């Protein structure tokens, strides 16, 4: 028995495997990737702020928007990546150039950069999405890998653009390359496949995926967010939880529980004392690194009032210490802009009732324009730095 010949570049006869189509879809995919990269960098710098960078505390909803956009454009990139790989699939079967020449070398470099790009991007989308369901089936750390891959993707994208620049330029100039469909292919009148039709279908797929998942960040669309791992109003007090009290090893508090502030003067309060301090209200979202977010009404004491009470300077930096034992999120820092912002609270109440244990009872930080992981829960000490 004779096996059928393996496919070659010419086996794929649809006129839609055309560089022009690849360029257009590539432009869309690159847009999604660039949005992911920039919003991802913003999220990274929120959590690892270099000394030279000052992140403002306003607009209060900024992080909610950027991280929601990150996960949204990342999810939309899934159909775009599939479409892009589909259009260029025949190239996978192109013969390697032989004998060695300058052209051959270029070709090998080009394919190498594409291999890096596809591998890094496919894995990035995969681990990014699974992370939003808190599922980590791989042996490497998510955050560090996701961050490093992001730079590799952008680097490979630059190389890819360098290689393809002539083609891209040709596309902008709209040459007659447009009409050179392979002769044997069936006419669109029969297959119903036109470029415009393909673009419309791919755009439709991206929109469909977007609409059925953006509801985790835009609560109005929550009911139809059937492909989103979160529903913004599900959870104690109408708010989802990322780290539960159980996971953090925190149980209810003792009668001798004290909240302390370590500054020029030392302050110590019981929970009842805290409740008698001047209370303020902030309407601020919890905006998780995992893309979901939900607005809420918080009541508690302004951090800047506490700073004043202990005699600290208004531009102080504050370390927040949780009762959570160990782990990256057991402490956080409020840079001066955030500590001083009148919206930043040591919150005691959420949506009209006392904080639930999973939301950080007895006291937690809530500040504008910050990822949820820095809104430290179960706070029992503030330390004024400088």
């Amino acid at each position, binding site marked *: 028995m004779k096996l059928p010949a393996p496919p070659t570049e010419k086996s794929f006869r649809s006129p839609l495997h055309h560089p022009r189509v690849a360029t257009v879809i590539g432009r869309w995919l690159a847009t999604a990737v660039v949005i992911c990269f920039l919003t991802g960098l913003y999220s990274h710098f929120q959590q690892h702020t270099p000394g030279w960078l000052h992140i403002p505390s306003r607009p209060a909803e900024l992080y909610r928007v950027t991280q929601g956009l990150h996960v949204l454009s990342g999810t939309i990139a899934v159909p775009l990546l599939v479409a892009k790989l589909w259009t260029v699939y025949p190239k996978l079967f192109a013969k390697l150039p032989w004998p060695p020449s300058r052209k051959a070398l270029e070709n090998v470099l080009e394919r190498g950069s594409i291999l890096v790009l596809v591998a890094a991007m496919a894995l990035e989308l995969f681990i990014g999405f699974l992370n939003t369901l808190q599922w980590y089936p791989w042996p490497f750390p998510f955050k560090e890998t996701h961050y490093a891959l992001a730079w590799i993707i952008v680097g*490979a994208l630059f190389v890819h653009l360098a290689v393809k620049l002539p083609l891209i330029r040709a596309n902008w100039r709209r040459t007659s390359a447009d009409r050179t469909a392979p002769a044997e292919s069936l006419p669109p009148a029969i297959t119903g496949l036109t470029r415009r039709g393909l673009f419309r279908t791919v755009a439709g797929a991206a929109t469909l995926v977007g609409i059925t998942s953006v509801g985790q960040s835009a609560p109005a669309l929550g009911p139809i967010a059937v492909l989103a791992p979160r529903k913004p109003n599900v959870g104690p007090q109408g708010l989802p939880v990322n780290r539960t009290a159980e996971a953090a090893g925190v149980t209810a508090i003792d009668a001798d529980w004290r909240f302390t502030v370590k500054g020029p003067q030392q302050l110590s309060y019981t929970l009842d004392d805290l409740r008698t301090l001047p209370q303020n209200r902030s309407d601020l979202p919890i905006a998780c690194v995992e893309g979901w977010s939900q607005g809420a009404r918080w009541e508690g004491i302004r951090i800047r009032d506490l700073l004043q009470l202990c005699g600290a300077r208004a531009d102080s930096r504050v370390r927040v210490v949780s009762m959570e034992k160990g782990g990256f999120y057991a402490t956080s820092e409020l840079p001066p802009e955030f500590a001083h912002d009148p919206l930043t609270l040591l919150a005691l109440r959420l949506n009209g009732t006392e904080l639930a244990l999973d939301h950080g009872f007895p006291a937690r930080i809530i500040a504008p324009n910050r990822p949820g992981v820095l809104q430290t829960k179960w706070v029992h000490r503030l330390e004024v730095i400088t």
Partner: protein
Amino acid sequence: MKARLALGAVGVGLGLWGLWLLVDAVQVPALIRLPIWLGGAVFADDAFLVPLTVGIGWLVTRWSIGPDHHRTVGAVRTTLLYVGITTLIAIPLLLRQGKGVNPTVLPRDYLRDWLLLEATIIAAGVVVYVVQRSRFTFKRSRASSGDIGGR
């Protein structure tokens, strides 16, 4: 040419920076298994996902040669594609539902929602299909009665 070289050099620089970040932050045992996952991601796409789309596309195109099929092939193809892509994204949700410790992650009934979503997509596809078909038959009957120029 200068622009290409500059772009390429910047790209290589950024890529090496990413590689350094990886080597710096990820422990060796995990690092050596990372290429397997990268390779796996390529394999899943190039040996499964894309061939599957190419294969189904081929079948649909063959089917479209049949009498009148070219009128409705768009609806068929689009419906299949939308069902496929939404299912691809739903798979992890379906696999993971009820497995985590945190009840606010994956709080929906994803099986029901997925079935509803696919049913909606298919229903919409059927509506478009029927509309396109009836338009065609309508045109043809008018054309054959000499009403208009026909086609």
